[in-house]
């Protein structure tokens, strides 16, 4: 039997995004595992359209792992695994979390990940 690479589904808490340059942790990856984002759910109620970015690194050290998502003011939205590239994000001591930021602060976000390890 081939070894599967199935993982464990986990979810972040509900986070509220900070403005570009002030990226904060959204999901802390378990030590020794990798994480693949399987679902992103958001609501933009911050009075302006905004780009939402997910990546690694805090504040000015943020590096996106996906292209920015355009979120429209007053609307919610979601992306599911068939819409999201299978980017596998590694835990390291320096980059222990999936982080997020947006061009306008205040987007409410939850992600679902699959951890492998």
């Amino acid at each position, binding site marked *: 039997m081939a*070894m*599967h690479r*199935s*993982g*464990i589904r*986990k979810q972040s808490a509900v986070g509220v995004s900070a403005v570009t340059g002030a990226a904060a942790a959204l999901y*802390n*990856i*378990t*030590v*020794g*595992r990798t994480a693949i984002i399987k679902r992103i759910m958001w609501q933009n109620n911050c009075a302006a359209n905004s780009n939402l970015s997910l990546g690694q690194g805090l504040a000015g050290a943020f590096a996106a792992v996906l292209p920015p998502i355009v979120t429209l003011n007053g609307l919610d939205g979601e992306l599911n695994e068939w819409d999201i590239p299978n980017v596998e994000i590694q835990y390291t001591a320096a980059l*222990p*979390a999936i982080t997020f930021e947006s061009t306008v602060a205040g987007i409410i976000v939850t992600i679902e990940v699959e951890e492998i*390890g």
Partner: protein
Amino acid sequence: MAERLYAAKAGPIDPFALVNENVAIWMKAMWHLYRVMFVEQMPRSQAMVFDQGALAALANTGDVRLINLDQQTTPPGLIQLRCFPLDDIQVEVKLGRAESRFTAANISARVDRFTEISDPDLHTTEFVVLQDNSVWVNCTNPTAYATAMSRIAFFGFRYTLEDLQTAKKTPAEVKAVVNNVVFVPSGSD
């Protein structure tokens, strides 16, 4: 009666011996001879789920005795179990507090939620506990988040045994006493 080495039996759980069959149980560096008098199944169910409670991120429970898996001592009881965690924890299984199961020279393998992915029947988690011994577990939360529950589910078979009052050092010596016998480890080497 077919001779079987239970530890080599991949696939769904199966009693390693049936009524009136002989078993040699490895414990304290000896093969102890018994004959099976009675076998009964222990299905996976709520009663066989043990919750070690909330765990902070990266914390462990320490060694916890699962006294409700203890077997009767007269006549000798024995339980054959497989296990899996319901929550995202790593479980170190011990027979008695000091004896870890699934050990290499330098590490102890643990049972976690990935175990079932490569071993759906969980046969690599199988262990056997004889009377006067207890299952102990140490559960670790590997994640960066607190977990509210640390549940482990067990299932298997329990046995009542007749003690043949014989213990031997080697399998050859055991087979000189009873030819048809199942060798069952219940302790480390």
